[in-house]
């Protein structure tokens, strides 16, 4: 009989012992220091999953970028999987993920490369900046920053250099490092708006002096439409949301990102209270419990204005206890698509949803949701207060009402203009834009930003409104008119547009993800295989999930139609 020690022994244990053991749990470890740092940044913020993007912003604002060790801690705090957080952090343009503390990225300066800015020389500027500052600073490209009347535009964190040059940018970089940049804001104050009769319609609606039906009738009579791009009649949208039992929500799309579009920014920055009154009226019409404003990250000055204005209307008791959330985008054109915006509001990657069901039925957090663009809401107080004839008397070439155009390109006075509906491009350029800049000859124009196709100057006498451009293969969309001149190479224009869509494609569906990428590869060639590009374009239009992929070939297709010789 052996002693008891011999029973501690066993035959040779199984196992090949080919690998070393693991001395930590599987995957990245949560380190205590990072947890403390993340908790400090989040303070006592709630940790619902829909706040993931907000919290990523908080971390990036604090540390300049997103460190992976912090993301582990954030995932742990939010009870999310690592992959869930990582997907979100890498989807949006404006987040920057750094592997380790040693890998701390340099300051990023973004040069806008959207069509208007590129035609204004942004590519050359980017090159110059890289040559001069490339060592200390990362020069990167950025999509349309909504300041196209001041092209080209350079972004340094939350500061924007307008009509940027190398010298101007260099000066701003110095100023930036000494923190001396101030944000200008000069807008109609609450008091001024109130004195002009502001909030009367809202108060009348609250008090019962004005009924929902009256408002809906006015909206129907004036044929007020959604002005984010789709032009869907506003009263029908409200009625569609109302047809589903509550609780209902409202989401405001303030993510205007269509290249060449800066009208929503104009309205919010100049008269925020009129926009907010319109928003509260719409919320009351659909009895929305909560309102989410999805504001693009590039509009940081607007964010400050809105924060102040939202606090003001709350103090003045105008919100009727509706919670209003101001949410910050993180750089994704696709969020202009309403269902992608909903996904983003829910804290996820902005992948457009399949329709049906439509958001008016199944929207934010699965609830029926009224989604409106800023300008759509901005008009409401005016439409309600003013006599219907004011609206119907306006208009040209058979159209009625008003439209707001963002005009950019080589014209003397680029900017936001409220014009009679149905105005033509040549009228807009001449009457509002002060005509072409000296030395530039009007060659072509894009009536609806990057998506709405292009037309030659010879066709600048077509009324620009919903439905009028479609017979010519174009649409008005967000009414962003980009003017092209004889100095522009149309192949470069087509490439610029395709590159924009490739860069902004969410990647969900093949025709858009691979279609934009392959189209761009084909367009990089000196000689274009236009037959294959047309075949591909047909399929992108037919088979993409959302409007982004469907509209991506519009620029190419219409330029090919009107300028076939230049696109060979």
């Amino acid at each position: 009989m052996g002693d008891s020690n011999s029973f501690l022994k066993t035959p040779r244990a199984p196992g090949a012992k080919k690998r070393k053991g693991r001395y930590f749990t599987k995957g990245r470890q949560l380190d205590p220091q990072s947890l403390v740092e993340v908790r400090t940044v989040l303070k006592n913020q709630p940790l619902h999953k829909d706040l993931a993007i907000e919290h990523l912003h908080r971390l990036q604002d604090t540390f300049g970028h997103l460190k992976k060790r912090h993301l582990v801690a954030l995932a742990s705090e939010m009870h999310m999987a690592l992959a869930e957080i990582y997907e979100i952090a890498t989807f949006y343009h404006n987040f920057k993920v750094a592997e380790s503390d040693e890998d701390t990225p340099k300051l990023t300066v973004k040069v806008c490369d959207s069509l208007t800015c590129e035609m204004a020389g942004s590519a050359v500027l980017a090159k110059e900046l890289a040559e001069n500052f490339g060592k200390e600073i990362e020069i990167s490209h950025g999509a349309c920053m909504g300041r196209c009347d001041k092209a080209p535009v350079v972004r340094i964190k939350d500061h924007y250099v307008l009509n940027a040059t190398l010298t101007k940018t260099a000066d701003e970089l110095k100023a930036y490092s000494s923190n001396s940049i101030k944000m200008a804001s000069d807008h109609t104050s609450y008091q001024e708006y109130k004195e002009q009769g502001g909030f009367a319609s809202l108060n009348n609606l609250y008090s019962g002096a004005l009924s929902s039906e009256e408002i809906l009738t006015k909206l129907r009579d004036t044929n007020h439409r959604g002005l984010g791009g789709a032009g869907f009649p506003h009263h029908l949208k409200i009625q569609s949301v109302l047809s589903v039992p509550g609780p209902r929500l409202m989401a405001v799309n303030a993510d205007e990102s269509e290249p060449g579009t800066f009208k929503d920014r104009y309205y919010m920055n100049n008269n925020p209270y009129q926009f907010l009154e319109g928003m509260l009226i719409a919320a009351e019409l659909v009895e929305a419990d909560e309102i989410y404003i999805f504001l693009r990250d590039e509009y940081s000055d607007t964010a400050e204005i809105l924060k102040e204005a939202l606090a003001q209307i709350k103090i003045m008791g105008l919100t009727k206890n509706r919670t209003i959330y101001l949410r910050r985008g993180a750089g994704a054109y696709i969020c202009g698509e309403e269902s992608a915006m909903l996904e983003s509001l829910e804290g996820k990657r902005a992948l457009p949803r399949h329709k049906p069901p439509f958001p008016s039925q199944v929207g934010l957090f699965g609830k029926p949701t009224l989604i409106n663009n800023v300008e759509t809401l901005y008009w409401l107080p005016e439409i309600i207060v003013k006599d219907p004839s004011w609206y119907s008397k306006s208009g040209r070439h058979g159209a009625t009402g008003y439209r707001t155009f963002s005009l950019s390109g080589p014209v003397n006075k680029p900017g936001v203009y409220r014009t009679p509906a149905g105005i033509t491009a040549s009228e807009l350029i001449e009457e509002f834009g002060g005509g072409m800049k000296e030395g530039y000859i009007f060659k072509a124009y894009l009536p609806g930003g990057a998506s709405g196709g292009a037309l030659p100057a010879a066709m600048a006498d077509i009324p620009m409104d919903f439905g009028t451009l479609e017979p010519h293969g174009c649409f008005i969309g967000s009414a962003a008119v980009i003017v092209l001149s004889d100095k522009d190479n149309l192949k470069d224009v087509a490439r610029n547009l395709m590159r924009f869509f490739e860069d902004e494609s969410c990647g969900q569906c093949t025709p858009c993800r691979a279609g934009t990428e392959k189209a761009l590869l084909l367009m990089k060639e000196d000689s274009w295989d236009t037959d294959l590009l047309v075949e591909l374009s047909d399929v992108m239009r037919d088979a993409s999930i959302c409007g982004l992929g469907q509209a991506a070939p519009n620029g190419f297709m219409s330029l090919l139609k009107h300028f076939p010789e230049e696109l060979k």
Partner: protein
Amino acid sequence: MTEGISFSLDGKDVTARTGQSIWEIAKENGTQIPHLCHTDRPSFQADGNCRACMVEIEGERVLAASCMRQPSPGMVVNTASKRAEKSRKMVMELLAADQPERQTSLNPKSHFWKMADITEVSSSRFPNREMPREDLSHPAMAVNLDACINCNLCVRACRDVQVNDVIGMAGRGVHSKIVFDFDDPMGDSTCVACGECVQACPTGALLEKNMIKAPAIDRKVASVCPFCGVGCQLTYNVKDDKIISVDGRDGPANQERLCVKGRFGFDYIHNPERLTMPLIRKEGIAKHDVAGLDPANPFTHFREATWEEALDVTAQGLLKIKDQTGPRSLAGFGSAKGSNEEAYLFQKLVRTGFGTNNVDHCTRLCHASSVAALLETVGSGAVSAPFNEAKNSDVIIVIGANPSVNHPVAATFFKNAIKAGTKLIIIDPRRQSLSRHATFSLQEKPGSDVALLNSIMHVIIEEGLTNTDYIKNHTENYSTLKEHLKDYSPEAMAAKTGIDPDTVRQVARLYATADAALIFWGMGISQHVHGTDNSRCLISLSLMTGQVGRPGTGLHPLRGQNNVQGASDVALIPMFLPDYQSVEDPEIRARFETIWDAQIDPERGLTVVEITEAIHEDKIHGMYIMGENPAMSDPNVTHAREALSKLDLLVVQDLFLTETAAYADVILPASAWPEKVGTVTNTNRQVQMGRAAVPLPGDARQDYWIIQEIAKRMGLNWNYSHPKEIFAELTSVMESIRGISWERLETEDAVTYPCSNEGDPGQPIIFGDGFPTASGRGTFVPASLVSPDEVPDKEFPIVLTTGRLLEHWHTGSMTRRSEILDAVEPEPIMQMPPAMFETLGIIPGDFVTVRSRRGKLDIRARADGAVQKGMVFIPFCFAEAAANVLTNDALDPYGKIAEVKFCAVQISKQATV
């Protein structure tokens, strides 16, 4: 019933059911629409991203993805329009541009290439782009994203189906790509290797390393997984008589899902250490001399024998002991890893051949206390509802269980339910991967279950949340319990449990007020000296709230081994004859004596740990052990090993030379699960059919044949020529499975019992109309506080708890011989809270010495924040650092389970060697 939706499909009027997609209806009508991102496998939702299935709908501006789109009445759908075909072909061409060359690709037979053939795409006119490089960091799976088409199926497999949440789609647009965690190598990620992604991948971008280059499969064999009580159905892919890969099959318990063991753990059967011939101990080799024994070359200690000799030695040895010291000086341990037929035959041999009831198996280390409590209170020892019922629950409690490790596929169904809105309450001293999904996660102090559960019940009574009608109509002894619980307020118990009273109150309300709530428990409940009390509390909790007998409600002890339910049902336990009929009841015994044509010992037999004691007390001299490894699995295992060494005759029947076989006189080479046909019963009471996929190695034999040969040599007149004859005998003696025939199982693969006749679909949910007790009522049995047997003190200040790892099953005899499972968890580790490393002055990976009153071992420490302060965890699967050297063999008085979940240890930095 909803009416059908009539619409036109390719000019034909067809009718769809609500919820059907156009793709599905087209398939039913014989039209195969190409598909990449879509699969109609269970649990996968259509995603509509690849656009390979586009169809044209009249009047619509753009095409529609047929996998997503449901028809509306009168819709005119054309699946074969020029426009639709052009789009589908273009999609394939776009994707083909970036694919590796088909001929040289890792999977030229992939679904992608099949679809390319259908759409007649073999090349692409588009330029290609640079694709990601290979990632071979994982032992089991190869990642080659150059073949990835971003179809998202692996993401859905990982996130929606298994909810392991490791795979993500990072980046955007053309730069979007599949990542693991933070774009980490798969092998360094949190991946648990369930393999759901490789089963879903249509291109070969994610592929079992074994399936690279698509080896030709000789045959596919439908069977069931042997690695835990979940009972996943699977398909073995066999080539050259070797299992080279495994796919999940659509069984009732798993719906095609598997875990790492079921997917990648079958190569143990081909391990060169397999026993292939009978062995007999060499003359003069002392039994305690095991240190130099190598299972790969046992001939230092054993010699080869013929079956004739080995069986003769076995039978004659057993008969000799029986003659000399009586039948009760023999004992047998059967196995919960074998089939029902083998378990039944084994206990029949011990009862009728040995002449004793000394027969037991690992249920004694498992759920015996749960079964004792269930039989005592509700009259039936099995689960009251399948775990899949979680989907119908508003609330589920997981207590003393870590299902994502021990019942991984069951855990996936819990996570699915939680995603759909079910609330989860976890009660366990350790955190676990499920904790992230829990509404309440109560990290109680170890061993405080009775205190905590009594305080929850106290709140329910105090706040009037009991179901008075249910108590009145279906239970008895409630007033005793009510009186008993008065002293157990959450405030009074807080110091014991470590849980703040407010949380206890919220948990009590959540459970009691749920429309349907279901309780799952595991070894953390049963493996205590108060294990039966723990279970009694859970039963009382469900009875007082009426959370039993309806969909989404019930009591579910998650059974550990693949056939521990079946082995217990067929009486591989010392106190019962089949169907839990008392062996001490003369009437019952008489019936079986007639059927078996033999005398049965009128006294119940000894249990596992009692048998060890009886050997030490010189009462037992001979043992026959089939597929059990008490030299690893028993508490205070040096004591058990010493007992094994003392036996006059030890016969061990197993696949490998186990730590137990090292003490054997005769070793009989047995059959592995994929080498045999037979039935097993899972935790859901589903009897399932296992089938042989590969031949036996060398001269290994079928276990039923070996048992029968011993029986014949002991004078029993047995003549079974196929397991189905044994199964027929089983159904004839067991009321519970009377309606399940072998033929029925061959066709249906799984039938739930109770099942009374051939047409009976079986009853998944029981106790709907009372309980199988004498009164028809469930009984409340109050439980008082009992301390763990060995509480920490100054000398042994740390609580040791033991259990399993995801990759290793039971004592590791099989899984540690699987190349992949061994690669993932290759060596003994102790899980220790990070703070303790500082205290000890060590870093993760350093050796520590762990001592208890019973033994000591050296082991490397792994930092694991899931373990609470003052506690460590050692898995019991590693022979070179066997946790059971340390554990306490104090028993629960009712279930006779040892308290392996709790003992006191001291831990020190290992002295420099």
